[in-house]
Each structure stands twice: as C-alpha cells, then as structure tokens.
C-alpha cells in the first residue's frame, strides 16, 4: 500500500465517521439538547436553587441542592467558577461547593443525552447516578477534612446577603422544560411505542437501492469496528443540517435586534428536520419505504406545544435570550466537536485494538485507573470526550473503565485543576483531585462488576 493510499484510507474513515455522526446523532439528540441548554441558561431563575446554598441551610438540603444546581445552573462555564467561589466563601461552605463543582460537568444535559445516544443508556444513567452520589460523598469528605478552614469563612458568610434572595421556578417554565425534554426523549428512546411502524408508504423505483449501494461503497459500514455507514435518510438529514447551518448564521447572529425573516426560516427548518428525522426510512428492491411511527406523532405534538408556548407564554426578551444562549452553545461546541469526531474516527483506524484490549479490555483496578489517568492528561473540549469514548469502545475497551474515563475527563482536566487551585488553594485541590481519581476508579469498577 502506498503512502497516498493509506492517507486516503484515513481521510475516508475520518469523513465516514463524521457523516455517520451527523446523520445519526446530531439531529434527534443534540438539536433538542442545545435548545434545552439554552433555555436552562436563559430562563431558569438562579435564586430558586441558590436560596438553599446559604450558610444557614441544613446539610440535608444544601448537598442535594448543590447536586441539582450542577444540573440546572452549570450549563455555562461562566457560571461555574463564580458560583463555586461564592458557595465556598460566602455560602454553605467547602462541602456543597465541591459537590456543585463535581456534579456540574458530569451531568450537563448535552453530555448526558449525547452519551446516552452514542454509547448507551446504561452508561448515561450510571454517569448521572454515580456522579450525584459520589459528588455528595466527596463534598462531605472535603468538609470533614477541612472543617477548621471552613469556620474562617463563617463571618463573611453571616454578613453576606447573597443567598437570601428567594424565588420559585414559575410553572410555565417547568412545563416548557418538560416539553423540550420530551422532544429529546421521544427522539432518542428506542422503545416499541416510538419505533413501531403503523403505516408504510412505498416510493417505487430502483434509484434508492442504487443510491444506497453507492453510499455503502463510499462509506463502508463495519459493525465490528462500530462504523455505521450512511443511509439515504441520513444523507437527506445531512443536507437539511447544512441548510440549517447556513440560515442560522443569518437568523441568529443579531437576534437581539429582533426576529428577522431568516430567524423564522431557520426555526421552521429545524422543526421540519426534527419531524423528518422521526420517520423510519428503509430501502429495499422495490424502492424507498417510509414508515410512520409513534415517534413521529410524539414529535409533532411536542413541537407544536413548544411553538405555542414560546409564542404565548414568554415575552420577546425571553425568546431572544433563549435563542441567543442556544446559538452561543452551538457556536462554542459544534466546530470543536466536528473536528473531534473526525480525529476520533481517524484514531479508530490507526490504533491497533490489541493495545486498548490489553490495557483496558477487562474490568480491573489497573484498567479503571488507566481510564482515569487518560482523562486527566488528555484535555478534550466539551462533548468531544463522547466520540473519543466511542472509539475506545469499538476498539475493545470494557464498559467499566470506559465509565471511569467518562467521569474523570470533564472533572479533572489540567486546566480545571489550575482554576480550582486559585479558589481553594493547593492543599485542598490536591486532596480533591486525589478523591476524584479514587472515586472515579471505584465507580468504573462497581459499574463494570454490576453489568457482568
């Protein structure tokens, strides 16, 4: 094989991974997840949660509230550090602050939904449950180790009025979140209710099978390596995504100057694409079979509800802020994610499976520790840890060490360790890092043992 051929082969697996990823994962999972993250950042009244994080709040309230706060408030990195520092110095103290810091990156809505769709619901659920439990345990341990230091902040906390503001989450915001969350679940859950086809439409002709075999030649699916390939449905959805990207730039850029025609076109296209993606489409020798299923009905109802609520229950400013936050997340995350998926797909073709299998093919302490250490030293931008994990999975990594890696990667990058250091100092940071490493290893071990 010449150098050119091997280079071409790598490029092909990179682009193939990217195309399969766009077709299968972005749409029904990430598109709603970005809108949810935007809504959490724009519409959620922060005081509804921070009122439980003051110095006077009892422990049984402040720790769970910190864990929840990680989910509701930590969607933006601008929020995490100031809130962490406030809880530590002027609020409930070191323990709840640590819980907040730990749980936030692990349970954010984008990471969880993406993990669930690309790697599996088991890992996504384990990621939520174990990070909440361990977040609280690590917080309690830190508070116990450093209880003398915490007493120093008591005076500053007593004078501060920061955490006294009271607010409740209005019911229309809760309903709106449930509708958005419903779109995500209806689009991604693989259950009979959504999957079963009740009516089929046949578009006759032999072009679909020809087009499909051309696509299979271009991006050969290989189940052994976890390479999915691209269907005709997928090709169509990629086309729609490119269209959305092109209109979104014009529609969302100056959202604060009001909705322009491009904004409506983009929102219309997104809705249409989500509906189109719900159909079950397959190819046979007769032609293209389009199946109507429960997913389609659920998405139609939910999207209709979202449009109605967005138009009637929210003011102009809330709508603009929601779309601005959503667009900000997309701009911040998607470009890096695409590069990450491309490189992870290339790595899948380059790394010999035997390496990963020897290192982390079985659920041992060493394998889990290897997962954690890899997570600490490799810094991947938000969400890129997921395609990286999928590459490891297809190369033969055990699901236990995989979870250990997925817990440690967002928690313990060198960058986040340095920032934490400036707030709580060297000694506490060192203990925290050590605890996270131990508990992530433990989480992987328990989970790996549990699924056997």
């Amino acid at each position: 094989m010449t150098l050119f051929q091997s280079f071409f082969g790598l490029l092909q697996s990179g682009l193939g991974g990217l195309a399969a990823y766009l077709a299968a994962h972005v749409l029904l999972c990430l598109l709603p997840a970005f809108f949810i993250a935007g809504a959490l950042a724009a519409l959620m009244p922060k005081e509804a949660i921070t009122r439980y994080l003051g110095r006077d709040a009892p422990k049984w309230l402040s720790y769970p509230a910190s864990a929840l706060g990680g989910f509701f408030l930590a969607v933006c990195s601008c929020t995490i550090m100031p809130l962490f520092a406030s809880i530590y110095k002027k609020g409930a103290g070191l323990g709840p602050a640590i819980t907040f810091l730990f749980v936030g990156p692990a349970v954010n809505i984008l990471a969880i939904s993406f993990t669930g769709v690309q790697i599996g619901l088991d890992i996504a659920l384990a990621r939520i449950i174990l990070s909440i439990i361990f977040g609280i345990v690590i917080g309690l341990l830190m508070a116990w180790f450093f209880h003398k230091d915490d007493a120093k902040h008591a005076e500053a906390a007593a004078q501060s009025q920061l955490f006294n503001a009271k607010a409740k989450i209005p019911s229309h915001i809760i309903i709106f979140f449930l509708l958005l969350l419903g779109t995500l679940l209806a689009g991604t859950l693989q259950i009979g209710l959504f999957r079963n086809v009740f009516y089929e439409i046949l578009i006759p002709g032999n072009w679909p099978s020809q087009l499909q075999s051309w696509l299979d030649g271009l991006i050969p699916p290989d189940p052994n390596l976890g390479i999915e390939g691209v269907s005709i449905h997928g090709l169509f959805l990629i086309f729609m995504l490119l269209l959305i990207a092109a209109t979104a730039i014009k529609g969302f850029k100056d959202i604060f100057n009001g909705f322009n025609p491009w904004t409506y076109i983009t929102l219309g296209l997104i809705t249409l694409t989500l509906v189109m993606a719900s159909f079950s489409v397959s190819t046979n020798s007769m032609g293209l079979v389009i199946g109507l299923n429960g997913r389609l009905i659920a998405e139609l109802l939910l999207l209709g509800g979202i449009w109605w609520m967005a138009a009637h229950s929210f003011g102009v400013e809330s709508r603009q802020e929601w779309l601005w936050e959503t667009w900000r997340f997309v701009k911040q995350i998607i470009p890096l994610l695409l590069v990450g998926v491309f490189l992870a797909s290339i790595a899948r073709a380059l790394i010999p499976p035997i390496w990963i299998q020897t290192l982390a093919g079985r659920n041992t302490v060493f394998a889990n520790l290897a997962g954690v250490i890899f997570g600490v030293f490799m810094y991947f931008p938000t969400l890129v840890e997921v395609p990286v994990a999928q590459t490891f999975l297809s190369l033969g990594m055990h699901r236990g060490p995989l979870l250990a890696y997925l817990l440690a990667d967002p928690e313990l990058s060198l960058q986040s360790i340095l920032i934490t250091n400036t707030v709580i100092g060297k000694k506490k940071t060192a203990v925290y890092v050590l605890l996270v490493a131990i508990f992530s290893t433990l989480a992987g071990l328990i989970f790996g043992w549990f699924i056997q």
Partner: protein
Amino acid sequence: MEIKILGGGCPKCERLEAVTREAVEELGLKANFIKVKNMTEIMAYDVMTTPALVVDEKVLSSGRIPSVEEIREMMIKFV
C-alpha cells in the same frame, strides 16, 4: 464615571459590555470601562454569578444581561 464589567471573558461578558456601551452613548455620559477578570477581585463585590455590571463600585446587575433600556434606566437613577 467608572464602569466595571466583572467576568472571566466569556461571550456573555462581551455582550454585557456592548449593551452597556450603547446605553452610555445614548445618555451621552463619559465613562471609563474596566474589565475585571480575576476571580478574587470579582468575589470582593457581592456577586455570585457573572457577568456583573458595576458602576462606581456599586453592583447594578449580575448573572444576566439586562436590555439597553433597563441599563439606561438604572444609569439615570444612579447619576
């Protein structure tokens, strides 16, 4: 007057600065803009969420981006 924008330099802080500059210009005020990015300095003001808007050492808003009109009204009250 001295206007401080507190925040680690995320897109929200830039947006807050742009909105504030617009409000200040509309009112025809002379203002000196300072960006505060250091976490310890930010914590000295009683804010728990950024971006925050501080005018002559008084916190006018935090954790959100007020509209131009809102900032204009806050400035008028303040001056």
